[in-house]
């Protein structure tokens, strides 16, 4: 068994129960591995991000500047953090931060921080507005999707062959189901105000949602796939409980996708399965999902795999896919001393959480 004494910085420590970020789960996967003996640095964007204070998973917690503040602010923050924490590997977990971190990868690596991420071109390929191309690469169907820049579209879209209900989506986050033109226009304005343009519209697909997560090795191979059927969702459609499955068709489509774009890094493939068992590609996320702890449940610790790849360590063969393992998420209150909160608010961070 390896010993990994690395310092790993993990972003996405937000964890509101209706839409948690993946960071806490990623940190938990790594922390609980008997192979890991290093430190975990939790990174968030808000002083109330719960993961910053979870001493069982993070040795320290720090705030980053929001991605909208630009590359220079992020780079400066990482430099300061690296001087303090001596980071070996950075695992970004949020869609919105991926473009900046991928762009800055050479400069981040110059600091001695390793990442295992796609190239900027690979990242662009999986943009939501290029889903149709990706579906063709994967050999599966996908619902019509279109970039929209004005709300007037929703009042005449039926002339172009669209029919309600539609799903209105932000480029990075958020999706709202609209049953009428007025609802769609409201969703459009809300999403544009929060996440900017373009806003995407996707034809609603009826069926059950299935997700696959894995790591692409950058040479066309998909490693350690874990598939899950959502059993219960939050009001925002996020998995609240799920069960591990194995479907060869979903495996084949995802493996074809990873091979076609030579994906490097974690990914999540979201599909809908209709009553005839046919899949429709809904989305591809360039990161681990919030339910990634299920990978530990099925003995395929994917965040640990990613860490090993970033450190250029060998990956052992994965055990056979294990089906019928459930996760049921729950919310819990963490007690936080005011001094810890004060430290995050005033200094942007909190060290020695585990002491």
């Amino acid at each position: 068994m390896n010993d990994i004494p690395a310092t790993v910085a993990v972003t996405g420590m937000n964890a509101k129960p209706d839409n948690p970020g993946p960071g806490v789960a990623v940190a938990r996967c790594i922390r609980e591995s008997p192979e890991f003996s290093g430190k975990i640095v939790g990174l968030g964007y808000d002083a109330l991000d719960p993961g910053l204070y979870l001493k069982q998973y993070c040795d320290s917690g720090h705030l980053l500047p929001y991605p909208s503040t630009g590359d220079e602010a992020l780079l400066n923050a990482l430099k300061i953090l690296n001087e303090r924490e001596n980071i070996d590997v950075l695992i970004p977990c949020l869609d919105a931060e991926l473009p900046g971190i991928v762009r800055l990868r050479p400069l981040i690596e110059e600091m001695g921080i390793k990442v295992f991420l796609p190239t900027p071109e690979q990242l662009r390929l999986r943009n939501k507005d290029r889903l149709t191309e990706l579906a063709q690469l994967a050999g599966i169907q996908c619902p019509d999707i279109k970039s929209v820049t004005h709300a007037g579209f929703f009042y005449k879209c039926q002339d172009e062959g669209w029919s309600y209900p539609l799903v209105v989506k932000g480029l990075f986050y958020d999706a709202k189901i609209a049953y009428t033109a007025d609802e769609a226009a409201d969703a459009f304005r809300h999403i544009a105000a929060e996440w900017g343009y373009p806003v995407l519209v996707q034809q609603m697909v009826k069926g059950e949602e299935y997700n696959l997560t894995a790591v692409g090795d950058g040479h066309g191979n998909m490693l350690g796939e874990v598939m899950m059927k959502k059993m219960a969702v939050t009001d925002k459609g996020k998995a609240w409980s799920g069960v591990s499955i194995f479907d060869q068709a979903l495996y084949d489509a995802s493996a074809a996708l990873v091979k076609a774009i030579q994906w490097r890094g974690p990914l999540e493939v979201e599909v809908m399965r209709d009553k005839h068992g046919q899949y429709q590609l809904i989305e591809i996320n360039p990161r681990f999902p919030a339910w990634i702890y299920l990978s530990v449940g099925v003995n395929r610790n994917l965040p640990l795999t990613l860490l090993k790849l970033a450190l250029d360590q060998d990956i052992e063969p994965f055990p056979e896919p294990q089906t019928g393992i459930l996760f049921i998420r729950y919310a819990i209150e963490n007690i936080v001393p005011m001094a810890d909160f004060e430290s995050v608010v005033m200094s942007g961070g909190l060290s020695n959480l585990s002491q």
Partner: protein
Amino acid sequence: MVNSNNEAPAIPSADTLRRLAISESGFVFDPVSGHNFTVNDTGLTILRSLQHEQDFTHLLQELQQEYDANPSDIERDVIEFIGMLREFVGE
């Protein structure tokens, strides 16, 4: 012995049915679709029969030997059960 339309119901394929994890309690899990459902003792017997017997007429004969019930009742119940099963396994 077939239904009133003189057509045997479409039975989910043996491969599909053999992939099901069936417990003694009647809890059934499909590892491909992720669906789960429960069956009673009779359903459990029919499901296990269907895993190796795909001929509807033979299946009814097997069940008639096992159960002391009107053959038309058995046929009706089995057709209904197969219909539900098809929905559960997505065929």
